[in-house]
């Protein structure tokens, strides 16, 4: 009997995260409770170590587990975005969640699942990655057990998540049933050579898989859990999952759609385009009316996911590259915005209402200016990173003939200006109140996060070329060039 070659190098960053989590759990046995939060720094070190090995792995494509896992440029690039969001979970977590070994381990496992998802090229490992990322997130959403909203978020997330995982798995089963293959490349080969048992199975499978990932990506109409869960979860967790999950699901969707399912045979392109337009219009419209900052950012995130899948709908190398750039851009701007929210709120999320940002610029100039930059970046105002991000997506859409998609993006962006600029206006309006709803200071790690995200938002906004070069390699990895 032949055992598959494991090749630990293909999952080296994942191994580092796993080892860190085990060490953290082990140390926790001997650590007094009140010092449990120090394990957070251990988690931080683990994530940094995983980031550090990424450049080393860049040199060569590693295939592991008998071809189920591939550590190619695409996977490594998405891993970087995921690890940065995990970093934020640790940096921001010190104040709000009182982290212990459990928090550290859960974040690391979720990040591990996300990374498996982006490097999986076979149906079973894809499902494995999806589940490994989901289960810890259910727990993390409800991490503040003393808060009703947190518990409610966890419950809703779990129920809806289980529902969508079921749909996704059902879809995988159909794909297998249609082709008899599990690896994405051989599914494609089977489809192209007309070896499919029944075309209906193939289409049903593709649809259900798309629904499962659309749920994770928060595409309308599979988005409804997002506002409740983002609002109810502790802010560091929200920051982490809003970016990490999207990056991972984007990676999986790109792999499945562009590798396994030829667009000429399974007509997913108009479907994704339709979902994208629906999502970005709905997200932007619904965000208009929000009064809670986290909820507003949740709807904004839905709209951003809409922009992101436009890149997939373009179904071209340019589109995939644009989407990857947007994931990175979104990581910087969105984590930055959540970092400011986390830095402002204390233990109990005082002042998450947008109204309480009034006059912030005069009390906390650094945070107010940073928040302004992040919101303007999300609104894709140049010279911030959101602008080239959206520009590349528009370019990809137009060059694939999707002029209507491009128009939808522009209309959506116009609507979004209203809700992105309103907090900015408020922050720079003098308020008579001397009482601030926010605690006076933030943990230093929150400031570090804000600073790093600010630097990324500015530098990549002015010099997007720094990123487009390496991403080109990643695109080639997907298209097998």
């Amino acid at each position, binding site marked *: 009997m032949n055992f598959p070659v494991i090749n630990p190098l293909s999952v080296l960053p994942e191994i580092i995260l796993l080892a860190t989590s085990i060490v953290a759990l082990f140390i926790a046995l001997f650590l007094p409770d009140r010092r449990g939060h120090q394990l957070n720094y251990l988690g931080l070190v683990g994530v940094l170590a995983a980031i550090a090995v990424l450049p080393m792995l860049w040199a060569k494509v590693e295939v592991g587990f008998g071809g189920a896992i591939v550590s190619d440029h695409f996977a490594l690039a998405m891993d970087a975005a995921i690890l940065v969001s995990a970093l934020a979970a640790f940096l921001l977590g010190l104040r709000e969640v009182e982290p212990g070994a459990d928090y550290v381990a859960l974040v690391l496992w979720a990040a591990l699942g996300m990374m498996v998802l982006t490097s999986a090229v076979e149906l079973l490992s894809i499902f494995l990655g999806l589940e490994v990322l989901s289960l810890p997130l259910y727990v993390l959403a409800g991490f503040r057990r003393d808060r009703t909203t947190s518990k409610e978020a966890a419950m809703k997330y779990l129920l809806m998540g289980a529902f969508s995982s079921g749909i996704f798995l059902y879809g995988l089963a159909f794909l297998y049933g249609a082709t008899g293959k599990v690896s994405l490349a051989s599914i494609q080969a089977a489809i192209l050579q007309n070896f499919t048992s029944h075309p*209906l199975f193939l289409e*049903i499978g593709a*649809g259900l898989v798309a*629904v499962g990932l659309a749920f994770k990506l928060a595409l309308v*109409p599979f988005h409804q859990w997002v506002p409740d869960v983002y609002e109810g979860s502790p802010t560091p967790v929200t920051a982490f999952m809003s970016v990490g999950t999207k990056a991972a699901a984007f990676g999986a969707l790109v792999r499945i759609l562009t590798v396994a399912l030829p667009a000429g045979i399974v*007509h997913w392109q108009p479907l994704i385009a339709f979902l994208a337009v629906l999502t970005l219009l709905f997200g932007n419209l619904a965000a208009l009316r929000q009064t809670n900052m986290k909820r507003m950012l949740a709807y904004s995130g839905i709209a951003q996911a809409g922009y992101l899948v436009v890149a997939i709908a373009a179904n071209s190398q340019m589109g995939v590259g644009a989407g990857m750039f947007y994931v990175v851009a979104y990581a910087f701007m969105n984590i930055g915005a959540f970092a400011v929210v986390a830095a402002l709120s204390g233990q109990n999320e005082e002042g998450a209402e947008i109204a309480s940002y009034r006059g912030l610029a005069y009390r906390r100039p650094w945070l107010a200016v940073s928040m302004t930059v992040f919101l303007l970046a999300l609104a894709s105002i140049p010279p911030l990173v959101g602008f080239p991000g959206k520009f590349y997506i528009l370019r990809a859409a137009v060059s694939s003939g999707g002029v209507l998609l491009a128009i939808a993006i522009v209309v959506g962006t116009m*609507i979004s200006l209203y809700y992105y600029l309103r907090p900015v206006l408020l922050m720079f309006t003098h308020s008579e109140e001397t009482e601030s709803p926010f605690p006076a200071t933030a943990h230093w790690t929150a400031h570090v996060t804000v600073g790093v995200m600010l630097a990324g938002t500015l530098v990549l906004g002015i*010099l997007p070329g720094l990123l487009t070069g390496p991403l080109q390699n990643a695109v080639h990895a997907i298209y097998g060039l």
Partner: protein
Amino acid sequence: MQDAIGILLLPALGSLIAAVFGRALGRKATSYITVGAMAAAFLWTVSVVWRLLALPPAQRSFDPVYWQWIHAGALQVHFGLLIDPLSATFLLIVTGIGFLIHLYSIGYMEGDPNFQRFFSYLNLFALAMLLLVTADNFLFLLVGWGGVGVASYLLIGFWHTRPSAVTAARKALVLNVAGDVGIMLALFILVMTLGRVSYAGVFSHVSSLTSLQVELVAFLLYLGAAAKSAQFPLHVWLPDAMEGPTPVSALIHAATMVTAGVYLVARAYPIFHAAPVAAEWVAGIGAFTALFAATIAIVQNDIKRVIAYSTVSQLGYMFLAVGISAYAAGIFHLTMHAFFKALLFLGAGSVIHALSNEQDMRKMGGLKKYMPITYWTFLIGAAANAGVPLFSGFFSKDAILGQALASGHFWLWLVGVVAAFFSALYIFRLFFLVFHGKYRGDAHPHESPPVMTVPLVVLSIGALLGGYVAVPGAWNLFDQWLQPVFSRYPGGILPAAAAAPNWGAIALTSVIVLAAVYVAWRYFAGDVVREELPAALRPIHKVLYNKYYIDELGHAVFVWTVDRLAILADLFDRVVVDGIGMGMARLVWGWGEALSPYESGYIRRYGLAVLIGGVCVVAFLTLVQ
């Protein structure tokens, strides 16, 4: 030459530090950092020039590219610097004279509550100006171009509690932006027709443009140049810009920014060579501006306004030169002008500082004995400005006039000579009114501190000796230095430049200038200011004093028209645009409202939505073939 970017980074850093940490660092540290940044940038520039000089002339051009900025289809824009003798000359002026003016500002702005902000703006200006002159393509030229406009706006309106300063700043910005639009339109044409924005790319493909296109580009570029360099009738902002602190007037409105237009025409000479109509226009307007502004300067009473009109007039000479393709002569005059005009402004600033902010020359007089250093240095500056023989302005102005005559532009030459008479008259009127006669004011004049007088002395050495790099009939080092720049493409060098100097013409201008100095001495060196004029001259005086009513005319024509248009536009805006806009907003908002029931929070509804959505997705995929 890869390291030349450091010259730009130094003031960038200085400006940022002064802006962010200025208050924490205090006045002294801030001034050290910002002034030090300029000093270091100057030394860096000197080393760059040194290395250029070490090379054979033909190789004195570097174009280091730092990064690719835009790559959109066929259009590629790099951020790169062009280091050649032309940009190096400007680098020397901007960093060298800029450094002296920074130094002087320490004394002049002493006691201003916003000292740090001032120095941050000064460094910001230097950064923008350096970018303008070193960019290797039109796009980054425009970035620098807009940047100096903004910095100028900030500095003119620096004393933002004075309504007149704010108005002047706004006026300057509006007129400058009008010029920016010209450059943008020129840029659009270049992108549309050639698909290139780099100097090298555009200049080597000028011949593929039709003559109409190239004339249009040249005119649009000139629109930007004329607005920035205060050419008639866009000059009106410059005299008002004197509302800013005097070092600002010296740095921006005399030595550097206002010469950017001349730089642009000289840099884009292959375009102007291919556009003879536009070039004639440049020269004609230049000559007219030189005369026009000089006559206004004769009757003004505000010391800074006289020098401001003098600047407008001298810029006219420079445009006259570049318009007739005497580029090297134009840049030569520009360089000399940078010295003596900065000197005059700083000297005026020294006087204003000594008299507790008095700017009216009727309340000055006899300052010679109170302020000896200012007096002597100012004398050198005035002589250079007037073109008194053997001072720097004499050499450079005569180079321009000589080439105008030699190339057959007799009328331009004549206008230039007449303007030279008035130039000498207005500057020596100012000089005698301020320093000679009896003191007529009620302040306590005193000499300025060394931090202010040292720059005066250094600049006066330049104004005294600078001209000797090009002595007619003997040698012309300046032409040699710029020669590689202007011989790269056709049309950069005037054949007449090589002609032997016309000694008769030089003698004539010299006599005219000296006569003007005598007239000024005769009428204005006395103890009292003559208030009464011969009846015949009174109407002329009135017209000149009111600056030919250009402001009023501009106000009547543009402001009246714009006002009426604004009323119409307001009506249109309220009825049509607001109607559509508010309607859209209500629609959007209504959608937002309408969607809210679907966000009920009930998980069973969420599940139902997923189910329906899933069914639709699968149905779509199976039915669409």
